[in-house]
């Protein structure tokens, strides 16, 4: 890879040293410094969406496994139910509902921002905060209702 080489203003007649010559000959401003930034919730929402897609892929593989045990008959499905009802299975199940709600909310945020909407500081922060935090209470609610209805038990 050819690295852009700083030219001390040679190409532009600029003497500030704020411009570099790119490999294709274009002169562009030097990038801001790598370490000068502060944490922002939009960054969390952004990287969390990638993590969510990875986790959702694992979830869908488990879904295909669920389809598989069903297709292989009742005794395999009983095995699956035992596993899903174990503490570890319930923990994974809870995690997958967090991932599902996160996928829906963060996906909606991403699509909204892709259209160019919701990009003012205020709305971007609001959408990111919803996408980052809301999946957890939603998943808790989901499981509280499941337990309360007696559909699932420890």
């Amino acid at each position: 890879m050819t690295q852009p080489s700083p030219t001390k203003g040679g190409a532009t007649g600029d003497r500030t040293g704020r411009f570099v010559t790119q490999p294709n000959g274009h002169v562009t401003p030097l990038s801001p410094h790598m370490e000068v930034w502060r944490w922002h919730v939009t960054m969390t929402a952004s990287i969390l969406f990638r993590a969510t897609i990875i986790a959702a892929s694992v979830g869908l593989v488990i879904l295909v496994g669920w389809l598989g045990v069903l297709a292989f008959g009742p005794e395999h499905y009983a095995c699956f139910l035992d596993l899903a009802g174990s503490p570890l299975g319930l923990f994974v199940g809870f995690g997958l509902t967090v991932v599902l709600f996160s996928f829906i909310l963060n996906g909606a945020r991403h699509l909204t921002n892709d259209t160019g909407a919701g990009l003012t500081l205020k709305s971007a922060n609001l959408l990111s905060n919803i996408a980052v935090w809301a999946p957890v209470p939603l998943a808790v609610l989901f499981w509280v209702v499941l337990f309360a209805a007696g559909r699932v038990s420890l």
Partner: protein
Amino acid sequence: MSDAAKFKNNVKVSERHGAGEWATERVALLALIPLGLWLASTAFTLAGASYEVVLAWFANGLNAVLLGLTAVVFFGFASLAWKVIIEDYIHKPGTKAALIAVLNLVCLVLAAASIFFITRLALGSAPLPAGFGA
């Protein structure tokens, strides 16, 4: 291919095709949001359900079609999303191409397996491996 200029001022021109995958990913994501909500309600309905209840659920054609659609659209979306992840972190051309090939194969196999299982469950076929040598 076309004789449209591939480079303009030494910059690669990609406006005619470069946005295709990006747009496909968005359309898939747009479809996955309602499908995801439906999947959440399905998970709620079928959590801890007995084998008979689950099979009765699959006997409803709408459920089978929606679940098949969810699986196919998701694995299509996942192949594009993982491709971007691979392209971001793997820079050796050979390794990158090999990983993307494996990725596409895995997504294709998972989507095909989903459709195969869902079809059998929707039709109420005998449990596997019936008719497959056992």
